[in-house]
């Protein structure tokens, strides 16, 4: 595309020059804003591409964005930093036209614009790679891409262009693949190529590396740097500070919906960036004792295999794992490699042959989740709303959900439910785990993500379980709550319980784990002490090395696939 695009951009620049008046005015505003923050960086050198002033967006009682100013220069990789719930996604959705801001102005190349819907954004030259992809699983790659283009032309032609561009950028794609059959990393490529085909001037990326292996992330960074050198700006949303420092030229930091600072991340430390995001010193888990006490094996998986239940699920194959009392074992992996399936099988939501799973040496693959709970196991699923809790049910009812048969007195005489007991437990969990709510005993759906996660985790920790299996313990949770939860997991293990953490967040894994295993396409690598694991090695295992390791006996791959 190279030259043609550049030519187009040149034209646009000339047009923008005509509207210089507004442009200059906005320059002044930006500078004064920067000055007030004390960042004191002179950014007027670059040509502004997108500028926003006073963007405000309200959802009901919540101010998601409050008078936010932002300026992105051409060819700049601009980081948007902030904790979960700081309003990053809301802000970029306003740029992409999928949300309508309540007030505020957006300037594009110096001209005031109203971005009413995504097709308008794309017409201007704004592309977006969503965190939760906006892909259609039942459709092919080329169909998915055609849907995002105003004039896709004939499919065969488009498929050829996809092949060319994707190979040119080192992100090869087969246009005829059905999305449902593709792993997450490839799906992200589709989104990126989809953006590139629109010849964008600004690409918005929402947490792009959260679904990539470290190696895949490196490859993405190369692509981003190439784009920037070609003049395309990138708005990069992340909470991974190390990445931001590595590739971003400039950063805007949001907290509680407001812009709190701007900076050049390469001049900051990870600590100072974190302080700006959180607004206070960040809590870390307390230093761990060097050698974890290894007690008896409390959770044992032996040759655990399970077929894929739907065409879009992952089959588990030949998984072996032992978790001892006293230790935290973490399973790393990119999303969609069988984590959910593994959780369902260990929790008992799905039956497998009895011998494949043992809790405290009791074979129980065929036992119900209730039976396992009664044997002192506890489970926290990835999806807190709709799996870990019932959205429309009050919290006390959600206490009953997992604890009705674990001897907590929730069922009184004659088999009637005791509301008082459930309410008392709910109060206790709320107090111990600092679950904040607007009024007493609300419906689960009204809680914020972090508070609900504290509740769902607290509900199980409160039982002091002998075996805890937890999937994505701090996904979408703010730093304070995340530290609290991670500390609680370590404390539980040190008290003699076996803790199995499934997580896609490597930082988290290194923070809590004593041993680490990697899951890839339904196969699990051997769990190894944290000291012997590096990010690079985990990355290789994520990318398929886990199969080689666990494929000692596996001769043929029984993958999912198979969709028509």
């Amino acid at each position, binding site marked *: 595309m190279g030259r043609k695009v550049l030519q187009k951009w040149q034209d646009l620049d000339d047009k923008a020059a005509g509207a210089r008046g507004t442009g200059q005015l906005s320059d002044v505003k930006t500078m004064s804003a920067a000055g007030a923050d004390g960042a004191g960086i002179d950014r007027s050198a670059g040509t502004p591409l997108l500028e926003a002033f006073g963007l405000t967006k309200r959802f009901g009682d919540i101010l998601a964005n409050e008078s936010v100013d932002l300026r992105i220069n051409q060819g700049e990789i601009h980081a948007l930093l902030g904790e979960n719930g700081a309003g990053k996604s809301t802000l970029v959705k306003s740029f992409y036209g999928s949300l309508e801001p309540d007030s505020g102005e957006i300037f594009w190349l110096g001209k005031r614009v109203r971005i009413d819907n*995504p097709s308008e954004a794309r017409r201007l030259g704004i592309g977006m790679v969503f965190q939760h992809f906006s*892909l259609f699983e039942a*459709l092919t790659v080329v169909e998915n891409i055609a*849907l*995002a283009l105003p004039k896709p032309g004939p499919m065969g032609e488009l498929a050829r262009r996809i092949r060319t561009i994707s190979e040119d950028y080192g992100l090869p794609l087969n246009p005829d693949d059905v999305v449902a059959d593709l792993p997450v990393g490839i799906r992200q490529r589709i989104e990126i190529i989809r953006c590139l085909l629109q010849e964008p001037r600004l690409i918005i990326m929402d947490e792009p590396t959260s679904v990539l292996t470290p190696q895949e992330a490196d490859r993405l960074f190369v692509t981003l740097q190439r784009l920037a050198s070609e003049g395309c700006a990138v708005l990069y949303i992340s909470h991974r500070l190390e990445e931001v420092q590595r590739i971003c030229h400039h950063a805007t930091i949001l907290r509680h919906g407001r812009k709190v600072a701007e900076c050049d991340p390469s001049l900051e430390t990870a600590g100072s960036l974190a302080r700006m995001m959180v607004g206070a010193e960040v809590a870390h888990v307390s230093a761990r004792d060097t050698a974890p006490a290894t007690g008896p094996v409390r959770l044992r998986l032996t040759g655990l295999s399970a077929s894929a239940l*739907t065409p879009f699920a992952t089959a588990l194959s030949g998984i072996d794992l032992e978790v001892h009392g006293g230790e935290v074992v973490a399973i790393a992996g990119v999303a969609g490699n069988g984590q959910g399936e593994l959780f369902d099988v260990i929790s008992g939501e799905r039956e497998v042959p009895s011998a494949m799973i043992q809790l405290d040496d009791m074979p129980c693959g065929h036992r119900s989740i209730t039976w396992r709970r009664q044997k002192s196991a506890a489970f926290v699923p990835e999806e807190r709303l709709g799996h870990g809790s019932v959205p429309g049910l009050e919290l006390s009812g959600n206490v009953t959900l997992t604890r009705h048969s674990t001897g907590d007195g929730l069922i009184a005489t004659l088999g009637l439910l005791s509301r008082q007991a459930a309410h008392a437990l709910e109060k206790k969990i709320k107090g111990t785990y600092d679950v904040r709510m607007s009024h007493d005993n609300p419906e689960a759906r009204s809680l914020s993500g972090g508070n609900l996660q504290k509740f769902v985790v607290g509900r199980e920790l409160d039982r002091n379980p002998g075996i805890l299996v937890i999937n994505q313990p701090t996904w979408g949770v703010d730093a304070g709550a995340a530290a609290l939860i991670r500390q609680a997991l370590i404390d539980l293990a040190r008290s003699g319980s076996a803790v199995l953490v499934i997580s896609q967040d490597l930082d988290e894994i290194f923070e809590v784990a004593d041993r680490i295993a990697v899951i890839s396409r339904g196969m699990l690598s051997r769990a190894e002490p944290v000291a012997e694991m590096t990010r690079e090695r985990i990355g290789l295992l994520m990318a398929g090395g886990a199969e080689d390791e666990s494929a000692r006996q596996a001769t043929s791959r029984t993958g999912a696939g198979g969709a*028509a």
Partner: protein
Amino acid sequence: MFEAVLLTVITAATPLLIAAIGELVVERSGVLNLGVEGMMIMGAVVGFGAANLTGSGTVGALAAILAGMGMSAIFGLLVLYLATNQVATGLALTILGLGLSGLIGEAFIGVPGLKLPRLEIAGLSDIPFFGPVVFNQDALVYVGLGLVAIVSYVLFRTRAGLILRAVGDNHGSAHALGYSVLKVRFLAVLFGGGCAGLAGGYMSLAYTPQWVENMTAGRGWIALALVVFASWLPVRVVAGAYLFGAVTVLTFHAQAQGLGIPSQFLSSLPYLATIVVLVIISANRRLTLVNTPACLGKPFVPDR
């Protein structure tokens, strides 16, 4: 004899075919409209009435389409713009349609009907056997088959069809890309309503040219089953519709032959066959899951 049977099979299959192809489009967009029976019966009564008033079968057929669309518009407004439960709203549509058609149709009971003209293609329809079967049918038989061809083409070969399938597969993504999910779905619902109305009109204008209360006798529901049977592929709807047409006609002939089987047992065959077919299809989870529109029956409320 065989030729006559084949002719009646085609006639019996046509209303099922038209209603099912309409519902297929609706379901491909992610909406489950269980009110096919109600829209069909309204099409039947309104089509009959309009044909009788004007003396034109064509006007009758057009009125039937409008009646079905009107009914589906109520459904669409509730389900799409008020996010009501699709199953319950579809049932309500059927209950209302059966009631309203009964009320409107009281005036037409016993009134002789108007038969749709046959589309005789000169010369061709005189060919023995082949001629009458292929070239001497109601215009609506051809309309039905034409609809299948058009729907097939539009769904899989055009951008409009791609958007429709995308909306049914993932309404969140479609919305994020800037497509108006509700608008696409509303249009699909209207199309489905028009088809169901026409199918009902066929019942009272061609199949048995008269008005009888509840004359659709569950065909709307069978059409819904056909969509599942076809696993959401238009061409398979044709096969399903003709299969059910054959079952219906066989029961008639078995009754006429007086085989000693109670007529009620024969009459219940299409319903039992529907259940059997549904079981066979749904037992094959891979087949159904791959083609089932992922958003089928799920409400969508855009956040803005």
